[in-house]
């Protein structure tokens, strides 16, 4: 699965995109796997209330299931307009 990072999430993790092999059932389980990997993930995901997630390019929440999903993206609250 492709995992994408934007804005300061991208900066903290240090890369815009990576392939992740995971059996995580939900976004939250994926977040826990990533946090367990390295400190930069731990830092980036330390406050989930400051993060938003999109699954296959649709905004969703951290409970969303990952079965059949091809792309997950993490980013801060949006500031368009």
């Amino acid at each position, binding site marked *: 699965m492709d995992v*994408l990072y*934007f*804005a*300061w999430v*991208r900066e903290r993790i240090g890369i815009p995109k990576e392939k992740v092999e995971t059996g995580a059932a939900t976004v939250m389980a994926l977040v826990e796997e990533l946090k367990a990997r390295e400190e930069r993930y731990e830092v980036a995901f330390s406050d989930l209330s400051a993060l938003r997630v*999109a699954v296959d*390019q*649709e*905004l969703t929440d951290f409970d969303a299931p990952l079965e059949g999903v091809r*792309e997950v*993206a993490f*980013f*801060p*609250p*949006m*500031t*368009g*307009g």
Partner: protein
Amino acid sequence: MRVVVQEEPFDFGREAQEFATGHSNMGAIVTFTGVVRDADQGGMDRMVIEHYPGMTQKALEKIAAEAVSRWDLGDVLVIHRHGELRQGDMIMMVATASRHRVNAFEAAEYLMDYLKSRAPFWKKEYTADGAEWVAAKDEDEDALSRW
């Protein structure tokens, strides 16, 4: 309905004119244009807008389609830039065409409220002191509850 995501500047005057003259029997045209202003702390040199290429166009189209159906609009236009911008540059515009002014205004406000908080753009401001991501405002999130 036209939704454009681009790095290049757009010609607001031409877009506004074409939109306003292109619709038969729409009595009310509203446009909103967002212009880069100085950072709240002052001294801004430039702004860079990051976006999520795969998602941006779809997210904007969904917001625009929702506005068209809720307010029975004759048309809607959304243009949003990304990349580097300077003070005074236009970031984005929306335009709405309706038979009645209240619908045109409300739909434009709806579009703006959703573009602010639901379209995948992130602004970073560069000043002499460094760079800072623009924080989302609680009031922008709260604005959505109106709809």
